[in-house]
């Protein structure tokens, strides 16, 4: 349905999109994932004909967006990063304007009603857009993209700035749209693509880093190696024991406390599950394990793991190892600082206790 071939976009000397190619099948929901400034919006703007590419081809259903812009644009509904709303219009006027703008042939009344029903903006249909909340504005923006029932729908960061409930609603909405539309959405939130998309395209610095089915990426993501554990026991000894445990890449004490238990962050070495080993070790020394929580990987980690996985050349492996080594040093610094904090906290508590005892004694006097 959508085909991008060797797309390049330069802004002066800056290369925003650097030779990317991918395809999207009909009826697929594809997530475009990447940090800010990775080239997501630029790619989408080229795809929708807002910008022109420096070189390369973008095709919608076989129509080249540069050759026949009108034909291609008719097939696309686009919600840019900032919804393009005329604040002084009512929702009704705005949707009618879009209906006319897109030269829609469907029955006006029933079609607009259907669109409003889909995005649930019936109750604000006659209100001026300026008076609407951010969530409703976003939905009006989505409604705009749906007008004319386009085959391809493109959303640029559709959930930014919404509250959690609205985010879930919009995700459900997008998943619903995937039944009879081809959807591309961009985001920098991993959970979002995991929740909604069939396929994930990860883009970084204008290049595609990964282009995989969601299950495959999820496998990488779920293969968690970092845990937040709460262990009741003397902090220094526990930490030393954790460092001594084979299979643990590094461990650090966190400032957080829960009763007499301290929190630690540990990361296992790749490919080993240390949870059981950890349990037995702690049981042996009778330090109760009162909590264990798997920490999600952030986007940067995923990039690293994806790059590690996809580029199996030696050179790539070397850089990856170097990166890990650098992180190790940084983590040690964090560890030392948090240790310092713990000592300080201890000293403070002891002082407080001591003064409390003094006052008690004075009271008794």
């Amino acid at each position, binding site marked *: 349905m959508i085909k991008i071939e060797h797309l390049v976009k330069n*802004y002066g000397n800056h290369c925003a999109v650097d030779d990317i190619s991918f395809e999207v099948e009909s009826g697929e929901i594809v997530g475009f994932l990447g940090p800010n400034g990775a080239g997501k919006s630029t790619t989408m703007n080229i795809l*929708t*004909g*807002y*910008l*022109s590419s420096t070189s390369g081809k973008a095709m919608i259903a076989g129509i080249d967006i540069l050759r026949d*812009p*009108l*034909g291609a*644009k*008719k097939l*696309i509904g*686009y919600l*840019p990063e*900032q919804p*393009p*709303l*005329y*604040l*002084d*219009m009512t929702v009704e*006027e705005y949707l009618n*304007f*879009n209906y*006319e*703008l*897109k*030269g829609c042939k469907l029955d006006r009344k029933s079609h607009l009603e259907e669109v409003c029903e889909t995005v649930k903006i019936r109750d604000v249909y006659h209100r001026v857009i300026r008076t609407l909340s951010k969530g409703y504005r976003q939905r009006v923006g989505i409604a*705009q993209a749906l007008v004319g029932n386009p085959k391809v729908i493109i959303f640029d960061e559709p959930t930014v700035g919404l509250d959690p409930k609205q985010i879930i609603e919009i995700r459900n909405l997008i998943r619903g749209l995937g039944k009879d539309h081809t959807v591309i959405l961009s985001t920098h939130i991993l959970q979002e693509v995991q929740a909604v998309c069939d396929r994930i395209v990860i883009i970084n610095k204008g290049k595609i880093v990964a282009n995989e089915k969601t299950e495959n990426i999820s496998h990488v993501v779920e293969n968690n190696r970092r845990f937040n554990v709460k262990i009741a026991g003397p902090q220094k000894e526990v930490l030393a024991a954790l460092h001594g445990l084979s299979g643990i890449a590094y461990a650090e004490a966190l400032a957080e406390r829960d009763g007499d238990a301290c929190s630690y962050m540990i990361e296992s070495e790749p490919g080993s599950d240390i949870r059981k080993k950890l349990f037995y070790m702690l049981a042996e020394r009778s330090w109760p394990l009162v909590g264990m929580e798997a920490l999600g990987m952030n986007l940067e980690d995923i990039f690293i793991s994806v790059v590690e996985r996809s580029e199996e050349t030696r050179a790539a492996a070397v850089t990856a190892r170097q990166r890990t080594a650098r992180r190790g040093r940084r983590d040690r610094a964090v560890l030392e600082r948090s240790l310092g904090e713990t000592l300080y906290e201890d000293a403070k508590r002891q002082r407080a206790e001591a003064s409390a005892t003094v006052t008690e004694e004075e009271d008794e006097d």
Partner: protein
Amino acid sequence: MLAIYRKEMRSYFINPIGYIYLGIFLAFSALLCCYTTIVSATYSTSQYFIFLVFALIIMIPLLTMRLFAEEKKLRTEQLLLTAPVTLTGMVLGKYFAALTMYVAGVLISCINFLPLYIIGASESALEDGSKLTQIGPITGQIVGGVIAIILLGAALIAVGTFISALTENQLSAAVITVGVIAAMVLLSVVNMLTDSDGQPIIANYVIRYVIDWVSVLSRFNAFVNGIFDFAALLYYASLAFVFLFLTVRVYDKRRWG
């Protein structure tokens, strides 16, 4: 194109700007008409139209400042540029909306001439039937003046549209448009200036000729005196065309930016 035209027309009346424009234009033209004809005790409307041109320096920016600058600020241009509409269609839709407002204002202001006809009729009644001289305003002159002011306005609106496409802020669009239109209009005034001996300040004939050729006002006079000047029509039409073409190019260029 039609959708954009209709949207622009609607937005002139959703916002106060459409009412402000019509109100100021009608009030000002009525005042001007009163002073240049009735108070000056003449039926000739040529002075009225000449002075009206100076009012356009302020009036045209009111119509054109929003056209593109506002879309850019609200990021709504993304909607228009990704919709199945050509750039030319988009520019023309907006241009014709501004032109419609302008022409509507000019046509409504034609009621200003009504008192002249009424006074003319009552005066010729007093002349007890001698039909030798016609008393009252000359309809040909008025029609010529209206056509001229519409043509000139059409050209200036194109200039304003172009400037609005270059800026991101309504106010700066308005200020620049005022400056440019004022320069275009006042250029011909420079030619008319004379020193104390009655000699033109710009003595060089060639320079005067060039200024005269460029100036938007010099072509205005024939119309105001009731002569239909085809060359002037062509001049104003091509001026409008050039600036609309440039506006389209501005948007085309930005896509490749």
